[in-house]
């Protein structure tokens, strides 16, 4: 009986090890496949030139620019609102019905399929505002998508600040708000920064919320035009703008260029490298900041 149970234990352990090894292999194969397939396109020419739907040799320059612009623009909306809501939840919210309702709303917003948020954006930011498909509408839709996450991250970051620091500040006569701004927020910065970078990384890969808000048309932009009020300028938020993720989706479903497949391979490789850079940057920055803030540099 004892022997049997020990044999079973050995078998189970082996299976667990196999699962772990399989997972690591899957990641290596997956990312390896993407980067290997896109290797011919990982050059500056591909990254900076315009796409071409008629012949081979098109690049992803505008899409890459749009993606970065979209990240920045959406964070301009998400960050202040999410941070304020997070401060409220961590510091001011009393255990009552209102707080419970807000918590439910955060959860509900966070679990909504991104396509539903895209449709909400289509209705409110595209149709009702009369803007049509614009970069700004897309950024607003993505903000709605990221808002619950930034709120949660801010709340957690603020809550993880040691209460003794807060009490010390209150004890020397600072008001609650002064304590939050001058003492708690600076202490929460390392974990806030990590969370913010990881969340903005989500915008890179978001496509479902953007196809109905920022549009899937490659709108020609003129990089020499720097007037933000002109719709052919790259800086204008009032122009349709497809991001890299939307571009990959579009190339797959309606690509017409003879090298559409290779363009999608290249774009996927660039996108995934970007995601890696974001993840690594978030980790390194978070670590260095927290080391500096805790005085161990």
């Amino acid at each position, binding site marked *: 009986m004892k022997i049997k*149970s*020990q044999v*079973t*234990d050995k*078998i*189970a*352990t082996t*299976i*667990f090890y196999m*699962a*772990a090894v*399989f997972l690591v292999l899957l*990641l290596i194969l997956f*990312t390896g496949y*993407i980067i290997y397939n896109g290797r011919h396109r990982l050059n500056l020419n591909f990254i900076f030139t315009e796409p071409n739907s008629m012949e081979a040799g098109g690049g992803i320059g505008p899409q890459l620019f749009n993606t970065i612009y979209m990240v920045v623009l959406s964070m301009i909306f998400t960050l*202040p609102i999410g941070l*304020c*809501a997070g*401060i*409220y939840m961590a510091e001011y*919210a009393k255990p009552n019905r209102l707080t419970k309702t*807000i918590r*439910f709303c955060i959860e*509900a*917003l966070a*679990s*909504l*399929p*991104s*396509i*539903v948020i895209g*449709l*909400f954006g*289509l*209705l*409110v930011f595209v*149709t009702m505002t009369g803007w049509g498909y614009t970069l700004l509408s897309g950024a607003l839709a993505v903000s*709605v998508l990221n808002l619950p996450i930034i*709120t949660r991250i801010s709340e957690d970051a603020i809550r993880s600040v040691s209460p003794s620091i807060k009490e010390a500040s209150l004890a020397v*006569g600072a*008001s609650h*708000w002064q304590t939050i701004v001058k003492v708690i927020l600076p202490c929460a910065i390392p974990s806030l920064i990590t969370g913010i970078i990881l969340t903005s*990384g989500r915008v890179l*890969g*978001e*496509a*479902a919320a953007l196809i*109905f808000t920022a549009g899937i048309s490659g709108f020609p932009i003129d990089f020499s035009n720097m007037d933000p009020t002109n719709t052919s300028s790259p800086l204008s938020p009032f122009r349709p703008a497809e991001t890299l*993720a*939307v571009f990959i*989706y579009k190339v*797959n479903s309606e690509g017409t260029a003879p090298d559409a497949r290779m363009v*999608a*391979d290249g774009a*996927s490789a660039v*996108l*995934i490298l970007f*995601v*890696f850079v974001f*993840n690594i940057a978030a980790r390194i920055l978070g670590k260095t900041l927290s080391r500096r803030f805790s005085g161990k540099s």
Partner: protein
Amino acid sequence: MIKKGKTNFSPHYIRTELLGKTIVTFFGIFLITLTICLVFFIASKGLSTFFKDKQSPLDFLFSSIWKPERGFDEGGPLTGGFVFIFGSVSISSLALLISTPFSIAIAIFMTEISPKFGQKVLQPVIEVFVGIPSVVYGWVGLCVLVPFIGNTFGGLGKSLLAGAIVLAVMIFPTITSVSVDALKTLPKDYKEASYALGSTRWQTIRKVLVPAALPGMLTGIVLGLARAFGEALAVQMVIGNNFFMPKSILDRSITLTSVITMEMGEAPIGTVHNNALWSLALLLLIISFLFIALIHKIGAKGSFSK
């Protein structure tokens, strides 16, 4: 100086406390407003199929004939969404079936078998999987998985099975991370008591740890299911988008999200077709709220048994 416990509207108090407090409270309440707006707008559009266009809600849920553009001389439009509902339910269940055993095995490995390897290697690996964009999952699925299924089993390769496998990879990080948290919060006594009784590690895992962490694991599974249900583009790229009931898991199929993605751009605003697509979106919203309610129920039950 402000004395504690006294409401005092001096300029100093307003500047150092009230102003900031009001702003953050406003944004806290803003989240409620936003959620209500979202539900209201989607519901007002989604319900007009039934109130304005007089489509039957029962047919919408249970009929499998989707002809929203059929003319009135032929009997009027039909908006049966059963094929999409069936597609979404079957693909998510299949994904869950593939993903759950694996995800939980990984979670157990990370907490019980080799926490060090789990922390140093598997944790970052899982985070990378979370970061990979869904279109990239779809693209790799289309380039690798679809031809593989086509060659092995015959047929086109674009199938329910392909969609379910892609989804299984996408939802495993959710299930694993929540299960890891559930296993980590278990009191050490459970494990030690089991070892003291002479059980092997596998017996401890199977008879003590997994049953005790079950509510937390179920939460993870429901979260994974919710993610699978709402995923749009990756599924749409590999599922084949066929408007008929699938005959097997190797047949092409369609989901709620993929029909919205494909047709929303073509259906003119105000038509029955467009409204019916909004009804599908409303259905997605309701289902995602139901999932949250379910998670709360599991959580309440779990804390009660502790």
